[in-house]
């Protein structure tokens, strides 16, 4: 099934997320990624990624639009939008020769070293989902101790 993205503009108040997520839960649709930011207007923008067929996507959109705190539901086409994700990574303590190799590898992938202590590294990488996936795979579980990921944020390319 196709990846779907909703960009939801809604009131920034307690319980709104519960109202939204239960619409998906009830229909046994898994939310793959969810991010929330506050717009300059004070409204919240929630970006949701899930998989569903056309019929369900349309139904979900209409049901969400009926929720009182929701102002707008935009369907974003992944192809027509700018997508970014951030990952923060922490490595295990590494012996000096490996340490430098890993630093180089992270920087070559577009990442940035934020902190380093006793051979362990904290770094940040932002970019497209696949780009981050590739770096994480190449570092592997031997090196990585912890990964925190933001989920994907999208903005349409339309002005």
């Amino acid at each position: 099934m196709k990846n779907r993205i909703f960009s939801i503009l809604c009131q920034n108040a307690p319980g709104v997320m519960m109202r939204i997520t239960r619409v998906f839960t009830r229909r046994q649709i898994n939310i793959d990624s969810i991010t929330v930011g506050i717009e300059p207007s004070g409204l919240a923008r929630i970006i949701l990624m899930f998989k569903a067929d056309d019929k369900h996507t349309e139904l979900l959109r209409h049901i969400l639009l009926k929720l009182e705190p929701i102002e707008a539901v935009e369907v974003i086409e992944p192809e027509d939008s700018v997508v970014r994700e951030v990952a923060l990574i922490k490595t295990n303590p590494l012996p000096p020769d490996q340490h430098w190799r890993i630093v180089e590898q992270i920087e070559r992938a577009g990442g940035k070293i934020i902190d380093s202590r006793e051979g362990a590294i904290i770094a940040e990488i932002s970019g497209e989902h696949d780009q981050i996936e590739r770096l994480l795979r190449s570092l592997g579980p031997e090196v990585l101790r912890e990964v925190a990921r933001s989920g994907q944020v999208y903005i349409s390319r339309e002005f």
Partner: protein
Amino acid sequence: MAEMTGAKAVWECLKAEGVKHVFGIPGGAIISTYDALYGETEITHILTRHEQAAAHAADGYARASGRPGVCMTTSGPGATNLVTGILNAYMDSSPVIAISGQVSTTAIGTDAFQEADMLSLMLPITKHNFIVHRIEELPEVFRMAFAIATTGRPGPVHIDLPKDVQLSKAELEIPAKVEYRKPLKLDPTPSEVTRAVELLVHARQPVIYAGGGVIWSGASPELIELAELLQAPVTTSLLGKGAIPEDHPLALGMLGMHGRMVANLAVTECDLLFAVGVRFSDRATGDVHHFAPRAKVVHIDIDAAEIGKNVRVDHAIVADAKRALRAIIEALKQHLRKGRTSEWLERVNSLRRNLAPRMDYDDVPIKPQRAIKEIMEVAGPDAIITTEVGQCQMWAAHFYRVRRPRHFISSGGLGTMGFGFPAAIGAKVACPDHPVIDIAGDGSFLMNSQELATAVENDIPVVVCIFNNSYLGMVKQWQDLFFGKRRSQTYLGKTPDFAKLAQAYGAWGDRASKPSEIGPKLREAMESGKPAVLDIVVDPDEHVLPMVPAGGRLDEPILT
């Protein structure tokens, strides 16, 4: 602006919305609001004996009057007792405002005495729900609650009211100056109308299918005008009963599992299904793949989320039913060539003649069909009929010819046993000049029979006609038809003597065992001026037939 407590503000807000009646039961977390009711003259509070009944009564009040019904409870068990009633109102799009007390804001989340997380419990079963955190928000919350409940597709709204908010004081302006801003498409676009008219003028075998949305939008006159203009037969959903007088020559009766055969066959044969204010419930459509198989489907509904949800739609109009029908009628008037449907009407009328259901049985025990006939004759066109759930409900839905909108009140989406009697109480409070009759089952009546006390104490003379078959009859029917007659746990055995039960409460009570007794005794019950129970002993082995099995095709019913 005036300084007042939250408790006082509740009643001021309700009065500002035009509320005259509230159904409820007090308790610790709502006691100060009830204190502020003491001496209030503009609002009548009806003390029910169970909160579920308060919710159903508010629902019945709303459905009979078209105005929102209000119920009130304490926190915890009082509030959770509302749940079935509120979901019932939600499923059937009925504007109910439910208010319950809550523990103080400082105690919320501490598992305080009689604390229930009503915000979470009510969330999926209301159109919207609120908790009032500060007294300053109270007028706005009430204003919005009524707006939400009554705008667009109606539905219930719950307000959770913490104890400290009721006690605190503030300068308040009531009604609050807030506007409900949710965008709503009420009018059809010109191109939507043109396309609908094109489909209608090309149809040779049209059927109009009307639901509760027609009744809520007050579109019955337009529905009838359209049907007559097109000479198209009209079927309805359960909740659409009364949208067209069921003795109108174009009315086919109800569609679906227990619908009229003529309606089910007409929908199966039609080339255009013109659906207004319906949601294509599985109980109405049967197998959706064989539903109206030859037809183009037009669907008018105010709720965009209903379009294409259950059946494929060829032309959708998201709009208010009344406005959409009006626009279509005006456009049609320019177009129509007369008499295009005469062959179709002949076909439908011959089906109707051949499949007319029989009601004139003289048997003892009484056949339920005959009981409906007797009730219909005595009750007259003004009577508001409510129903419980089960065979009793389907006898009423299938056979009772409802003449007016808002005169048939039944639990459709949820199928809630115990709904009919408190709903009748609510309907009678809303419409005191109309006779109100609950067509009940013995099982269903026992689920809220304690409300006899409410009816007697508050002098609300509704009549309950119990179709007493000593069974949970509809479940028994399924067991007989689909489970090899293994009647597991459906025999009610020695049900109470309902006439004596009624009398014990101070109500009128009697029993009818022969068909000829029903009419005179019902008349006596209605003329008693008291709440009344007529215990009609009916044939326990009678099935509601024809019946389309769940998921079956409308043209393949079980006949015997």
